[in-house]
């Protein structure tokens, strides 16, 4: 199973080069084209129509925390292949490919940092790593983030983006739901706070576990936030779905989130919440 691991020192060498000279990003909402560096300047929000592109974990962290304050934790955790899972290709291949493509060891990055000088723990998911699916490593990293937050007496800021549990780890993937929830409860018992930020898309097992348990739940505009995806719902019920089915704005209307926050305002909102939720006197 060591084939699933990529040495961290080579990950950036093998990662795709920044495509500075092309326009590889097409806005699905207004069809504008952008280079990566153009979107980086706007936090990956379409300057034309405001569409929020998915954001890579490291870019997200850079956009949220004070420069230079982030210290990564549990960076060397890697998935095993407990079932010897093989669909059209072996799970180990898929993992290796994901690591090469994203430069990440898994679909979540955790660590501690400060936001506007307030200390916090952060856990950030990356949808580009196997659809942000939650397997044993995501579960373990999130749980360690809870413990780290509890130990430091600081709130945990979670940014989720996930298609759900990782099928290739079978029942152990499902067990990451109770596992991460147990970790959140341990954090809350220690007086800790969880700020959950829902990015597009947050579905399935991640929504049905820690992402819904924030003391405060924020969401980015138009992010899909549903337990079942629209296609499954459509196929099961044969109903015509509402246009904004499962989107942030719909979830806001139905009482599931506290605020829809455009990415440009996310950092300020998180900073305010950290000030409020940090233990008085700390």
């Amino acid at each position: 199973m060591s084939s699933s691991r990529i040495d961290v020192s080579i990950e950036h060498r093998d990662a795709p080069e920044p495509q500075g000279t092309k326009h590889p990003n097409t806005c699905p909402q207004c069809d504008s084209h952008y280079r990566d560096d153009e979107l980086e300047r706007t936090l990956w929000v379409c300057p034309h129509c405001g569409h929020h592109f998915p954001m890579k974990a490291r870019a997200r962290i850079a956009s949220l925390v004070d420069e230079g304050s982030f210290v990564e934790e549990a960076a060397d955790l890697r998935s095993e292949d407990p079932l010897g899972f093989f669909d059209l290709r072996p799970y180990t291949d898929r993992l290796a490919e994901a690591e090469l493509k994203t430069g990440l060891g898994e679909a979540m990055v955790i660590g501690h940092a400060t936001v506007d000088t307030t200390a916090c723990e952060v856990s950030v998911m990356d949808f580009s790593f196997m659809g942000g699916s939650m397997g044993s490593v995501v579960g373990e990293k999130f749980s360690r983030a809870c413990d780290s937050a509890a130990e430091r007496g600081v709130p945990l800021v979670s940014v989720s983006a996930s298609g759900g549990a990782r099928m290739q780890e079978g029942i152990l993937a499902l067990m990451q739901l109770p596992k991460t929830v147990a970790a959140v409860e341990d954090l809350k018992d220690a007086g800790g706070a969880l700020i959950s930020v829902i990015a597009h898309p947050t579905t399935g097992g991640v929504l049905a576990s820690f992402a819904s348990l924030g003391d405060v739940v924020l969401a980015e505009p138009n992010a899909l936030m549903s337990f079942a995806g629209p296609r499954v719902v459509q196929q099961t019920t044969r109903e015509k779905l509402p246009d904004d089915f499962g989107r942030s704005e719909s979830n806001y209307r139905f009482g599931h989130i506290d605020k829809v926050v455009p990415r440009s305002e996310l950092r300020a909102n998180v900073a305010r919440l950290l000030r409020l939720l940090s233990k008085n006197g700390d």
Partner: protein
Amino acid sequence: MATDHELRLRERLARLRSVNLLGGARLSAEVEKLQRQLERLAEETTDEDIWRAVELARHQDRPYTLDYVERLLDDWFELRGDRGRADDHAIVAGLGRFEGRTVALVGQQKGRDIKDRIDRNFGSAHPEGYRKAMRVMELANRHDFPLITLVDTPGAYPGVAAEQHGQGGAIARSHALMARLEIPTVACIIGEGGSGGASALALTDRVLMQENAIYSVISPEGCAAILWRDAGEAKKAAAAFKPDALHCLELGVVDGIVPEPEGGAHTDPDEAARLLGDAIRESLEELEPVPADELKRRRRARFRSLGVFA
């Protein structure tokens, strides 16, 4: 199918593991010996065995939650409604006496005939069902009644109203409440343990699984549709993600396998209930002497230990 010998072995192993969990390392040598034997046997579980479990777990005559309630509990009193919006018939909850003690029982309920199935939504609950479950769990917690859950669902219902009423959040909160309970809690997967809608009722001190039940992150058909792009490859998918009881035991996801009558629980529901009752009694007797905060600590530690990584 496992032989009688295997089942006895596994049962014994499961019991020793439970004791071990409670009593420290004193039995670890015996556990290890059995574990080795079990591993050898597990290798022999064929894809056919797994698919047979999928079929038996979904068998139309398989006993459902209320079939066990009827056979195991006295003075059953069903509690209805989430106190907010509805009474979801896909989940039943209530109080009863299990061998003298009052317990709360919560479980998904499938329907037997077509009318009943529709009424029960095929055992697929809406958020309102999980909210009813939580209400009854809180009642049990307040009164120090042990909680028994019976898990039997293809999954939480994927519908527009279910999403609008917060399916993801309800499932998350049901997990969270179970992690906070200060009472002995025992779950048994008695048929289909489908995805988050199943684990939402199974964050318990002991997780049991009937011999022919399945417990999985997604249905075989769903998995096949996504990974093989063909729902017809369900059998292949099941073989790959191994939702059968033996594999769940091996991975530490369940603590014990509850034997069924030869041929499956549906061949003799009375006997199946007797065997289930034995397993629940043993689990409760182990758990009842443990102080509440210690139960809660161990329960969380149990689930936090699940996963394989390097």
